[in-house]
């Protein structure tokens, strides 16, 4: 894995204004994944470091939400466990700019008339809507089948624990005067390297998609007010992962 930017535990506490007690408590409650605790020997002894961007984003989210939700529920909302029974109102997906009738039909043909979809379906929809512009129909189907194939293997849990990227790739192969282009889909942690002949069509940060859904669910009891300046509304709905993350933060900070 590539050298991620790390931040020491002490810096995290200072920067975020939290205590050791809080950090250990949040870890115990499963709000901060075990694998983010990176131990390193330094000249001052054993020290713990974290992936900088991830820990800061996570703590901001916890701080913003902890007063409204009991800690035990928070874990379910923002981390590993995904409550399979939760349903996402279509109206919400529409607001996220993810709703597309064609996609909806391919993702969840049976429920399409319903007002709500499962969290898994919302996730697939979210991923596919980010590909819609760049990908061909058969590629979209390939991605959908790849996701479905991993569903039983706990894909959602892995996404929220490790952060996974989905890559849509193309490669041209020529042989004996015939040339063909093949499409490939890869699910891997950040920083995958591909051979120079591969064209990366789109990269989707799956954890951003999932967090976006969960965040929206978490806020479901609130009145959907004060959303006017949300960049997502008038911007391109198929924006990159980063854009989604920024607006997530902005909403949470309020």
């Amino acid at each position, binding site marked *: 894995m590539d050298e991620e930017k790390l931040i020491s*535990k002490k810096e995290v506490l200072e920067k975020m204004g939290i205590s*050791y*007690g*809080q950090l250990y408590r949040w870890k*115990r409650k499963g709000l901060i994944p075990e694998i983010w605790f990176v131990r390193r020997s330094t000249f*001052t*002894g*054993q020290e713990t470091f974290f992936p900088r961007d991830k820990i800061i984003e996570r703590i901001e989210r916890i701080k913003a939400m902890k007063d409204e939700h009991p800690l035990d529920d928070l874990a379910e909302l923002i981390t590993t466990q995904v409550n399979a029974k939760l349903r996402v109102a279509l109206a919400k997906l529409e607001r996220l700019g993810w709703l597309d009738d064609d996609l909806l039909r391919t993702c969840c043909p049976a429920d399409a008339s319903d007002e709500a979809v499962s969290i898994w379906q919302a996730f697939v929809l979210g991923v596919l809507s980010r590909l819609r512009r760049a990908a061909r129909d058969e590629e979209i189907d390939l991605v959908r089948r790849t996701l479905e194939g991993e569903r039983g293997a706990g894909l959602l849990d892995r996404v929220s624990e490790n952060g996974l990227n989905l890559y849509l790739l193309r490669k041209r192969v020529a042989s004996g005067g015939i040339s063909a282009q093949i499409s490939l889909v890869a699910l891997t942690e950040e920083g995958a390297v591909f051979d120079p002949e591969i064209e990366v069509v789109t990269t989707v940060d799956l954890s951003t998609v999932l967090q976006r859904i969960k965040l929206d669910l978490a806020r479901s009891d609130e009145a959907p007010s004060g959303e006017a300046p949300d960049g997502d509304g008038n911007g391109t709905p198929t924006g990159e992962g980063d854009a989604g993350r920024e607006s997530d933060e902005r909403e949470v900070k309020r």
Partner: protein
Amino acid sequence: MSEERRSVSISGSGRLGGGEYQRVAISGSGRIDGDVTAEELRISGSGRVSGRTEVGQIAISGSGKFGGAVRVDEMRVSGSAKIEGPLDAKEFKSSGSFHAEGDVAAEYFKSSGSFRVGGDVEADIFKASGGFDIDGLLSADKVEIHLGGRCAAREIGGERIHVERQRLGSLSSALLGGLAKVLTGGGVAELRTTQIEGDEIHLESTIADVVRGSRVEIGPGCHIRSVEYAETLKVHDDAVVKERKKS
């Protein structure tokens, strides 16, 4: 599975299949083959569950062995217990001895006997007054240790961490101290760990590499290589701190 859950008691020697029960009492020697779910499990002789255990209340005054994970609301051990899988309890109290090979999680954890844990111990409140050996991390909002023997954990972290020597009446202390030495095998009542992190830390007879905290008090008998503190630091005359850093 019948609607009405059965209650079973083994008072001689017996074996029982796994399943759902109301109440299981073992007063002789008993063995449950497989997973067991029950409201109550009492072992006053010797008992063993080979699979997973999911019980409201467990009381062990003899010897109990659990081959799999244990999930329990309230567990009391006054004899001895061995748990091979992870233990997840709301309230755990032991005055005997127990050995958990995996992780232990509890809201309230109290041991006045001795115990050994192969994984981490996580609790809201952790109280120990005997001796213990934790291979992993000890993490709790409140860690309260009354040193009653050799205590060790790889790391300790939480909000408030309080470690003190067993307080004995001044008159009887010399006598009892001697007795305690014999009982605890060598008389070492101390805590050994690599690292302690907390907001409020008070330590006595603790040997550690690094202590990090906001308000830190290093009491008598401590040997600490490095203390990093944010607000205050007090060091007792009878303590050794090689390095102090305010951050």
